[in-house]
């Protein structure tokens, strides 16, 4: 199975987002690098709005991710509730 990843800047806005991603994707592995965090996951990875909202205590629009996003791989599918990264092979 191929790996997908999402990389985010390390800052106060992303702390809970990273926490939420790791909670929703128990198979994901978090790599901390200077000024950034890279989360790798076999097959697919999901970023869930509701989990982030619980942790930050306010409404969150998934498109806010763009502000602190560094990079990602995989086929992207974004709805109001979830951003999914996946490979078909």
């Amino acid at each position, binding site marked *: 199975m191929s790996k997908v990843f999402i990389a985010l800047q390390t800052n106060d806005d992303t702390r809970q987002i990273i926490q939420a991603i790791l909670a929703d994707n128990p198979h994901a592995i978090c790599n901390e690098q200077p000024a*950034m965090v890279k989360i790798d996951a076999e097959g697919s990875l999901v970023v869930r709005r509701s989990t982030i909202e619980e942790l930050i205590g306010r409404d969150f629009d998934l498109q806010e991710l763009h502000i*602190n996003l560094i990079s990602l791989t995989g086929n992207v*599918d974004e709805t109001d509730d979830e951003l999914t990264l996946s490979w078909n092979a």
Partner: protein
Amino acid sequence: MDMKVGKKKLGLKEKYQHMTRGLGWETTYQSMDDVFPFVKYEGIKIHDWDKWEDPFRLTMDAYWKYQAEKERKLYAIIDAYAQNNGHLNVTDARYLNAIKLFLNGISPLEYMAHRGFAMTGRQFPGVGARVACLMQSLDEIRHAQTQIHSLSNYNKYYNGFHEYRHMLERVWYLSVPRSFFDDAVTAGPFEFMVAIGFSFEYVLTNLLFVPFVSGAAYNGDMGTMTFGFSAQSDEARHMTLGLEVIKFVLEQDPDNLPIVQQWIDKWTWRGYRVLTLVGMMMDYMLPKRIMSWKEAWEVYFEENGGALFKDLARYGIRPPKWLDQIEQDKDHISHQAWATFYNYAAACNFHTWIPTDDELDWLSQKYPNSFDKYYRPRLEHWREEAKKGNRFYNKTLPMLCQTCQIPMIFTEPGDPTQICYREVDYKDNKYHFCSDGCKEIFEHEPEKYIQAWLPVHQIYQGNCFEEGVDPTAEGFDPLSAVLDYYHLAQGRDNLDFEGSEDQKNFEAWRGMATKNAA
């Protein structure tokens, strides 16, 4: 009591539909073929433009909102960095040469990408694709501007940042990145999308922006880190779009597959050659390193690229050509490039040096198959010679590859002691190439590549001197005349880092920052 009734907002998918569909029309005063003259000649067949979808479903209203926030963040950091004399916090002044290379060789490409996406968007009849190109075109001009603004702070203190615009069209090694982008923007709109949107953005830019920019942060350069990550946050969108372009085009018509495959082969190779510069920056120009070029290549090209091409296999796409050679090259190209710039430091707008013993050990450890055997002894020899006062500066101009325009420095696959040469006779001339990849690309479009502006040829033809200079005059010094033409000052902007004005100034200013005047 007033009850606030929330107006139902459109969902992401509905909003995307409304803002990217039904905005175009069939023209009647002029034929559609006249309005969109370039959309058919490449042979790509599109039957339904509405099948185009941006997976992020970003619309212009949201685009402005988030981009504005990114800009505010970026400029707050850049101001703070400048106000705090942040440039004195970089690890050591050698690091500055990596960002000179960035400003001179990479930022102008961002501007060309802006132009390229503006032109390409104009040529697509589908509204979804045009909106996507518009956003990317705006992103790219933002990248050019934020990089120039961030790096202008360094121009107040250090050499080599002063005329990147002038140098782009003149300095020998800058013809490599420049001709790469010129090649892309002079292709048709679909080839441009595959070249830049897919091959460059998806397959290769992670290597430029992720490990290198993280390395900038590690070396105390907050300005570069900020514009780098801010640019990369747009790249995530560009990459996604690059992949979408490929899928969209392949799903439209089976006849598109061989055309797209040929472009993927060509542009992965072209982009890979340009990235040689980045390999050298990572292995030699960051005083504190986070990962070697080879390691970055394995993570971002072999692992991610491998997953990508496995995914695309369902469309009949195979991995790009010449991967065997690319696989072997990862042990060599950064060392071969640094040796070249060390040789030609007299004609460069940045400084080079021999790595310290610690750094040589790090390279030995990261490159166990190649460094001690082929590259370390040469660097140590040059160091000994420099100690004796014979710092080696090569004054013979190198032969260039007709396609990638890089000097012929790369070695034969399987034999790192033999320079790789290929040649082709075309019409009445002989053309030279650094590799099978560059040779094959030339053979596919010879009429395009015979027009290449090769800096070495141009110097020998007398086209790289200021007006009024007489190369036949007694005592004529060609190097000094070429430096005048480049707007480089001998002894200030070029030569070895050791003894440079940058080195002395940085040391003196850092001293002032940490001590009171005596």
